[in-house]
């Protein structure tokens, strides 16, 4: 029974309320009243988004809002109480969980056509087969980062206006209204409405077929804020407008960040193979039947967050061992030998980090690893958003830089060079060098170790395990992994250097 309950709590489902009475609550710590001054990433500053002053708390209109909350609190349903409890875990952390589910739900490649070709998901016809998007690791890395950075920017704006206007929460104004969620900052504009508004708009852009679930969840979030006595309807309306305005800025950026052309074209795919051949190397080719076009070969040109295009190229690792070199033969033999003599423990590690089809992908896995440690800190909502933004920015940058490397060298997978080499994991359909897992994980561990230094050893151990898991799976050479880890650490450094100077770094 306990186990069953645990599973119910563990199940994250959009539209389903988890009865998570045991979940720790987000508490106010410091409040971060100066967050409106923290350095922006995309916006020019908090006043780029105008938020008009609220009405007086003594006004008739506001008193009517309070009456509505009082009445609603007097007849709370079981579902409403469960909803308040669900959101008490924190807005940013809950929406991150929801995003993980959206990614897993969309992490499926198109099925082949009868003639052996593959259809491409179409953002303008998302409900067709194949559905849009195919949330593969680069797409997912970008999605997590857009949502996290937009939440962070929107909350900094919200914090600016909260402390500009200093409007108290309904539960602070009216003795008859209970505080069913903690009040951590002035109420106007509502941080719940800001987060639900900015997140829902971006999720609808990124996962258009899920519009219904997303909209319902966002509405439920705002309703919970109201019923809990944390926000009045005008607090919510101002927050929603602010969140949507910030989302519009990010939507514009997403339309021009290079994602639309990241799939390349048949001519480009051929040019990549020809270039590798011209260098005297065996070019990568798809091991799928029928052969599938490579995954997002131009993703390396998508706009990064903390790195300029010149820095992406500057940090690009040198070439892998030549496909005809004794070193490559030696590395190939190591992969083959490892898979052939795989222990159960090694297989468990490979499977733990598989993050293949229908998964939240490796960037999602690192969000999952970070969540309990973030939660334990007791950070304010805006500081929580900062942590997720830093983590997901670096993993997006890792995706860009790793894909730039992969499609610069177009290096074959081990099972292409040796057809007798069988894998313990599904074989990703893109070039081998360098390992995406290693790059993502190393960048993530770098940022997490900055955010939570006391757990640096743990994050590093997880990173090492994620990286070597790809050798155990038979899908990466050792140099893919070692170079990827080194590359990822340098990428992580860009985000950490930004964070140290952003005005929020307390150390």
């Amino acid at each position: 029974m306990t186990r069953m309950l645990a599973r119910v709590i563990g199940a994250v489902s959009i539209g389903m309320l988890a009865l998570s009475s045991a979940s720790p609550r987000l508490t106010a710590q410091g409040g971060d009243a100066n967050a409106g001054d923290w350095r922006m990433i995309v916006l020019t500053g908090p006043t780029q988004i105008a938020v008009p002053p609220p009405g007086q708390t003594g006004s008739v209109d506001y008193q009517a809002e309070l009456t509505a909350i009082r009445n609603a609190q007097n007849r709370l349903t079981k579902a409403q109480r469960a909803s308040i409890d669900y959101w008490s875990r924190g807005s940013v952390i809950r929406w991150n969980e929801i995003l993980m589910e959206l990614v897993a739900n969309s992490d499926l490649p198109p099925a082949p056509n009868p003639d052996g070709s593959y259809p491409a998901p179409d953002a303008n016809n998302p409900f067709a087969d194949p559905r849009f998007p195919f949330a593969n690791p680069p797409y997912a890395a970008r999605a997590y980062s857009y949502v996290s950075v937009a939440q962070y920017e929107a909350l900094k704006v919200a914090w600016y206006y909260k402390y500009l206007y200093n409007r108290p929460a309904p539960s602070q104004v009216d003795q008859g209204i209970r505080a069913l969620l903690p009040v951590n900052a002035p109420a106007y504009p509502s941080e719940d409405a800001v987060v639900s508004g900015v997140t829902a708009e971006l999720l609808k852009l990124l996962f258009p077929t899920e519009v219904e679930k997303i909209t319902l969840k966002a509405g439920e979030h705002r309703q919970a804020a109201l019923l809990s006595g944390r926000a009045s309807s005008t607090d919510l309306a101002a927050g929603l407008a602010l969140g949507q305005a910030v989302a519009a800025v990010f939507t514009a950026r997403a339309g021009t960040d290079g994602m639309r052309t990241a799939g390349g074209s048949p001519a480009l795919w051929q040019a990549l193979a020809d270039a590798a051949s011209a260098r005297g190397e065996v070019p990568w080719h798809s091991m799928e039947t029928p052969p599938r076009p490579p995954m997002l070969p131009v993703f390396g040109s998508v706009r990064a967050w903390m790195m300029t295009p010149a820095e992406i190229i500057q940090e690009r690792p040198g070439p892998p061992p030549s496909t005809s070199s004794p070193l490559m033969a030696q590395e190939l033999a190591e992969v083959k030998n490892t898979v052939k003599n795989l222990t159960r423990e090694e297989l468990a590690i490979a499977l733990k980090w598989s993050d293949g089809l229908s998964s939240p992908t490796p960037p999602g896995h690192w969000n999952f690893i970070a969540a309990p440690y973030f939660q334990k800190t007791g950070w304010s909502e805006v500081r929580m958003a900062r942590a997720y933004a830093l983590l997901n920015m670096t993993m997006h940058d890792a995706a860009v830089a790793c894909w730039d490397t992969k499609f610069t060298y177009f290096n074959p997978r081990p099972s292409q060079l040796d057809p007798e080499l069988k894998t313990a994991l599904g074989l990703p359909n893109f070039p081998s060098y360098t390992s995406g897992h290693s790059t993502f994980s190393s960048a993530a561990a770098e940022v997490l170790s900055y955010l939570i230094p006391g757990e640096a050893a743990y994050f590093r151990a997880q990173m090492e395990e994620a990286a070597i898991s790809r050798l155990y799976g038979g899908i990466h050479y050792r140099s893919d992994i070692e170079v990827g880890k080194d590359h990822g650490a340098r990428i992580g450094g860009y985000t950490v250097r930004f964070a140290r100077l952003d005005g929020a770094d307390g150390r």
Partner: protein
Amino acid sequence: MATLRLLARLTLVLSAYVLLPIVPIVHAQTVDDQIMIEGKTLFTGYLFTYDTWDEYWEGPLKRDNGNIGTLTMRTSAWYVNYGVTDRLNVMATLPYVRTRASQGVLREMQGLQDFGVAAKYKLFSVPSPIGVLSTFAAGSAGLPMTDYTPDFYPLSIGSNSRRASGRFTVNLHTKPGFFVTGSSAYTWRGDVTLDRPYYFTDGQLFLTSEVDMPNVFDYTLSGGYLRRGLMASVSYSQQRTLGGGDIRRQDMPFVSNRMNADRIGGMVMWALPKKLRFLSVQGAYSYTLRGRNVGQTSTVTGGVMYTLPLHGRPTR
């Protein structure tokens, strides 16, 4: 005679009782027939099963997959049945399974699968104008013997789930030797633990390694001839998994998928004459007509069985 009847049990199971994932699992205990071994008799032997498919159902959609080609599963199973009394039989089986895909890069898997134990009890027999009507109750359990991964379908050798079943069987046997049998079971399945911390199935992301396995209902109808040293029968069976999600378009199968199958089968067994009467041989074939989240399997089975009387009386 007892030998022959016991052989019938084995073959029927292979064509009918199997919980069919994309790779079928052998439950080499046949608790679903009308045959009892006599008391104080040991019956043991070896069965080899060859399953193969090159098309499967992805949810309701039947398809092939160039990254799998033909999937084969070879099972070697040791089997033993002991007659505690004429009315109570206990049996056990231990299969070794090997899977392989003819195309693609995924590696083959092999290993000891699940130890099966079962007890079958003959409830009552009543004569009727057309023959003898008998009823049976049986309970069985499956216990994974190794920690093989259930997270590599369709190449996993099994679901790595503990199982318990309750079964009821009715048989009508006529004097000339013709018979009809109906048998049905409900199977409870224990949670499965994955090596990864979360999984997505049936529209939800579960943030846990524990997979709740849906239970299974199955039934088999069979008819044939059983007399002296020969048994021949045909059967039709349905298996329904009572929950679980579909394989999504172009996704990998998952251990808790709703795996359903309708199968037909036929079997022949023969007890060797004279001095070799303690030995018997059998052969069977079955085919999946319709399914959901399973392969369209063709299954061939062959086996040799040995009977050892321990009661000191002449063998009937």
